[in-house]
């Protein structure tokens, strides 16, 4: 049995291949286990059911489809998430506007800051600084 601490698992929901690759590499480099990237809501749900992630990084718009139902599912299952999108915060349903939000293009350090804050028990409430 390994005595290494278990790595946190992050589900990446992003349909832009280059951006997904960069985020996957970024999170991988700092030691996270990355699930995905997945590019549709249904695949994201299947991934969550197969393995509960510690956190999800989710693009708001997947090929023109807004991921609001996925946000509801994540919230229902108490899986924290970071929203990344080119849209402004006003596009996010009001029930999720308190969640960590990054408007593209964002700095990788801002994403890492959110991830570390959430996983260190900072929660996903407004104490997180918006980037």
């Amino acid at each position: 049995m390994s005595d290494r601490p278990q790595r946190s698992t992050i589900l990446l929901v992003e349909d832009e291949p280059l951006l997904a690759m960069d985020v996957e590499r970024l999170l991988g480099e700092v030691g996270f286990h990355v699930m995905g990237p997945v590019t549709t809501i249904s695949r994201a749900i299947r991934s969550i059911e197969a393995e509960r992630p510690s956190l999800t990084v989710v693009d708001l718009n997947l090929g023109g489809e807004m991921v609001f139902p996925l946000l509801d599912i994540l919230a229902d299952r108490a899986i924290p998430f970071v929203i990344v999108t080119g849209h402004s915060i006003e596009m996010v349903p009001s029930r999720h506007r308190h969640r960590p939000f990054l408007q593209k293009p964002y700095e990788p350090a801002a994403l890492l800051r959110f991830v570390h804050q959430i996983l260190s028990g900072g929660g996903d409430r407004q104490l997180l600084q918006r980037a």
Partner: protein
Amino acid sequence: MTAVDRATEQEHLRKAEADIAEANDRIARQRALLAHLESDGHDTVMAKDLLQTMCQTLAAMEQHRQLILRELGR
């Protein structure tokens, strides 16, 4: 401003905001592409020029959005 004018401006605002979101996505993609080109040792002059143009276009879109908001605020 008449109700019809207001509805038209609100439609313009919706379109402007969608365009801005798409522009943000494109800039993010272009930045990622630029980083990959640089890491592979490719010439990035054209990619940087394009990124700059995209950023200027985005600034113009945001100014346009402000104009619409000003109209709606009258």
